[in-house]
C-alpha cells in the first residue's frame, strides 16, 4: 500500500517532466551510477593493494634498520645509530618515525625532535622469536603501519618503524579526482547525446501534435512524414490514414449538408409558393364568392317581404361577413400580399399593427431601408419577425417590444427585442426550440446568422445578420 503510494508519488514527479528531462535523467542516472560504482571498486582495489605494499615496505625497512643497527648498538655508537635512523627517514619518504629500544624498553635513539610520544612505546612490540610484528596505529596524522623487529633475537633490543599512509591517501585522492573528472566528462557527453536523442524522438511527436491541432480546427491537409521505421513511424502512418479517413468523411458530410440545404430551400420555397397560391385563391375567388353571397343576402333581406323571417337572412349575412373576415385574415397570415407588392416595411407595419391590436402590447418598429431587399431575404426576415412576435405573445409576458431592421453595407441586420421573462437560450427541445431552429435555418440558408440572447432580467433579444452580396 505504502509502496504503491511512494511509486505514485515518484511517478507524479517523474511523469510531469518533459521527455527531454526523462531521457536526460536516465542517461545521467546511469552514468553517475556506473561512475560511482567504478570509483568505489577502484578505490577498494587500490586500497587493498597499497595496504599490502605499505605493510611489506614497513617490514622490509625495519628489517634493514634492525640489521644495520646491530653493530652501532653493541659498540655503543649512539651517533652512528642516530645517523642510521636519519638516513632511514631520508631514504624512505613514507617513514614517519624510527626508533630503537633496548631490551628493557628504553628508547636508545629516535627521530622525533624535542621529545617522544610516549604512548607509542607500548602499542607494538616483537617477541624475541618473532621475525617481525606489524600493528596498525591510528595517529593524529592518519593511519601508521608500525613494525617492530627484534635486534639480535631481542638480546640488544628492537627497531621500530612507522610508515604513514600519506602516499596511499594521495594516490586514492588522485584516483578519485581523475575518475570524478571522467564521470563529469562522460556526463557532459551524455547530456549532448541525450539532447540529440530527445530531438530525434520528440521532433516527430511535436509534428504529430501540430498536425492534430490543425485537424481539430478542421484542416485535414497536413500529413506528417514518417521519420523512422519505428513505433513513432507507425503512429505517423496511422495518423495520416486517420486524417485521410476524416477528410473523406468530412467531404461526405459536407455534400450531405449541401443537399440538405437545397432540400430545405426547396421545401421553404415550395411552402411559400403554395401559401402565396392559396392566399391568392382565398383572396381572389373565395373572398369574391363570399362578397357576392353577402350582397345577395342583403338584397334578400330588403326585398323579400313575404319571407317568413327576414332576420334569418340577416343572421346568414352576418355569418358570411365573419367568414369573409376570417378568410381575409387567413390569407393575410398565409402570405400577405403587401409583402410581394409593397415590400418588407409595409408588410411588417401591417403585421405589427394587427398584432398590437390583438395583443395590446406596444411595439416600436424602426425600418431603415432605402430600397427593397431581395425577395428571399424579405420573406425570411418577415417569417422570423412573425415567429418571434408569436413567441412573445405566447410566452414572454412582455410590456413592450421593438423591431429594428437596417442595411449596413452589404449586410442587413435585424434585432427583435422584448422586455419579457426570457428563457434558456441553450434549451434544445420543445416547441419553442423547434421554432428557433426553423428561424436559424432560414437565416443560415441565406448564409446569415441568428443569435439569441435571453435572461430573466432583460428579456430576449434576437439578432439576425444576412449578407446581401452572396444572394
Amino acid at each position, binding site marked *: 500500500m505504502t509502496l504503491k503510494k511512494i511509486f505514485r508519488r515518484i511517478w507524479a514527479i517523474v511523469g510531469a517532466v518533459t521527455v527531454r528531462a526523462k531521457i536526460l535523467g536516465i542517461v545521467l542516472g546511469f552514468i553517475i551510477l556506473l561512475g560511482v560504482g567504478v570509483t568505489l571498486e577502484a578505490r577498494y582495489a587500490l586500497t587493498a593493494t597499497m595496504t599490502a605494499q605499505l605493510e611489506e615496505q614497513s617490514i622490509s625497512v625495519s628489517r634493514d634498520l634492525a640489521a644495520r643497527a646491530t*653493530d652501532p648498538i*653493541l659498540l655503543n655508537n649512539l651517533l652512528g645509530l642516530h645517523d642510521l635512523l636519519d638516513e632511514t627517514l631520508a631514504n624512505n619518504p613514507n617513514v614517519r618515525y624510527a626508533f630503537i629500544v633496548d631490551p628493557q624498553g628504553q628508547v636508545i635513539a629516535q627521530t*622525533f625532535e624535542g621529545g*617522544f*610520544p*610516549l604512548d607509542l612505546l607500548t602499542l607494538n612490540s616483537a617477541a624475541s622469536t618473532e621475525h617481525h610484528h606489524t600493528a596498525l*596505529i591510528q595517529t593524529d596524522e592518519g593511519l601508521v603501519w608500525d613494525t617492530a623487529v627484534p635486534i*639480535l633475537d631481542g638480546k640488544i633490543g628492537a627497531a621500530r618503524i612507522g610508515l604513514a599512509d600519506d602516499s596511499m591517501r594521495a594516490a586514492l585522492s588522485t584516483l578519485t579526482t581523475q575518475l570524478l573528472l571522467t564521470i563529469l566528462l562522460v556526463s557532459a557527453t551524455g547530456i549532448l547525446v541525450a539532447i540529440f536523442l530527445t530531438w530525434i524522438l520528440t521532433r516527430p511527436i511535436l509534428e504529430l501534435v501540430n498536425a492534430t491541432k490543425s485537424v481539430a480546427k478542421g484542416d485535414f491537409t497536413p500529413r506528417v512524414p514518417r521519420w523512422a521505421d519505428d513505433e513513432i513511424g507507425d503512429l505517423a502512418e496511422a495518423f495520416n490514414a486517420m486524417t485521410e479517413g476524416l477528410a473523406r468523411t468530412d467531404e461526405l458530410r459536407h455534400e450531405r449538408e449541401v443537399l440538405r440545404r437545397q432540400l430545405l430551400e426547396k421545401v421553404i420555397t415550395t411552402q411559400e409558393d403554395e401559401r402565396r397560391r392559396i392566399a391568392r385563391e382565398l383572396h381572389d375567388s373565395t373572398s369574391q364568392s363570399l362578397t357576392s353571397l353577402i350582397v345577395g343576402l342583403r338584397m334578400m333581406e330588403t326585398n323579400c317581404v313575404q319571407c317568413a323571417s327576414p332576420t334569418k337572412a340577416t343572421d346568414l349575412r352576418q355569418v358570411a361577413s365573419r367568414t369573409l373576415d376570417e378568410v381575409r385574415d387567413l390569407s393575410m397570415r398565409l402570405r400577405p400580399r403587401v409583402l410581394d407588392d409593397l415590400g418588407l416595411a409595409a408588410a411588417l407595419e401591417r403585421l405589427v399593427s394587427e398584432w398590437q391590436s390583438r395583443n395590446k402590447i406596444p411595439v416600436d418598429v424602426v425600418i431603415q431601408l432605402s430600397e427593397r431587399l431581395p425577395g428571399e431575404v424579405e420573406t425570411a426576415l418577415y417569417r422570423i419577425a412573425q415567429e418571434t412576435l408569436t413567441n412573445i405573445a405566447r410566452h414572454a409576458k412582455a410590456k413592450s417590444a421593438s423591431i429594428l431592421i437596417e442595411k449596413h453595407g452589404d449586410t442587413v441586420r435585424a434585432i427583435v427585442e422584448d422586455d419579457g421573462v426570457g428563457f434558456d437560450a441553450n434549451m434544445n427541445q420543445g416547441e419553442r426550440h423547434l421554432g428557433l431552429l426553423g428561424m436559424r435555418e432560414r437565416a443560415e440558408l441565406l448564409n446569415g446568422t441568428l443569435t439569441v440572447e435571453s435572461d430573466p432580467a432583460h428579456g430576449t433579444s434576437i439578432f439576425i445578420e444576412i449578407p446581401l452580396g452572396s444572394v
Partner: protein
Amino acid sequence: MKKISLLLILVLTSCSAIPQTEIVGKVDLNNLQPLPTPEGYDAVPLRVAVAAVISPKGTVESYSPFLSYLEKKLNRPIKLVQRRTYLEINDLIEHGEVDIAFVCTSAYIQGHDSFGMELLVAPQVDGKTTYNSLLIVPADSQAKSMKDLRGKVFAFTDPISLSGRVYPTYLVQQLGFPPEEFFARTIFTYSHDEAIRAVASGVADGAAVDSLVYDYALARDPSLAEKVKVIQRSPDFGIPPVVVSPFTRPQVKAELQALLLEMANDPTARDALTSIGVERFVLIDDSVYDSVRALVGVIPTSAVQP
C-alpha cells in the same frame, strides 16, 4: 531521496576504509614528551667488557652462554660492553666504567704499564696459555713470506693489536721499510674475524691474525681452509688475559677469580667455556708478557698510533 543518498555515503565511506589489520591504538604523534630517565637496575650489574677481537655480533653470540653462566653464579645482572677499538676499552677500564674485561695482549701491556690494569686469570687453550700471530694470504696466493706482500693491500685489525698490527709492522720493519711505504694500501678491520673475511674474499692480499681466533673461525667454518692459508707463524706470545680495573673492589676481584678458576670443574659451565673456545681459566704471571713488551718496545710509537 534523503535515505538513498545517506545509504550511498555509507557505502562510499565503508568501502574506502578497509583496515585489514585491526587498529591497535591511538597516538598523537605531535604530543612530544621528554623520555623518562631509565630506572636503575634492581641490582648493580657487573659490567663485562670484551675487546673487539671478533665482530660485535660474533662477540654477543659466543659470549652469551658465558655471561649467562656468570649471571647465574653471581646472582646479579651482567652488562656486556663493547667498543670499536682496544683503546676505548682500555679507557673504560682505566676509569672504572667496567669491572672485568677480556682484552688483547698488547692492550693489557699498555693498560698495565700506564694505569695499573690488573691481571685476573688467563684462558688456557689446547693446554697452552700462549698464542701466535698468523700471517695469512688467500689460498691461491703466490706469496711465501711478508717480503712477497710488498706493494699489496694489507689488512690490520686494531691499531694496538699485538697479533694484528704490532707483529706484522715488526716484520715489515725487519725488511727495512716503514709499513706505509711497504704496502700499496692498508685497512683496519677492527676485529680478527673481519680480517680473515677480508683475505678470504680477496679484498686484502694479506693479514695478520690471532691464532686463537683463526682456529676458532676454522672450526666454525671449515670451508675457510680452502680460501686462506697461513704462510708464517710468530713466536709464542702471552695469551690475551682477563683483567680487572684498578677500581674493582678486592672482594669482587677475588670472587670472580675463584669463580673463573672453578669453571673447568663445573659440568654446567661446559657450554659457557666451549662457546668462547677456552678449556679452563688459570692464574698467570705478568712476566709471561715480557717477551711481548720487548717486541712492542722495538716498534716506534708513531707506527702504533692509528
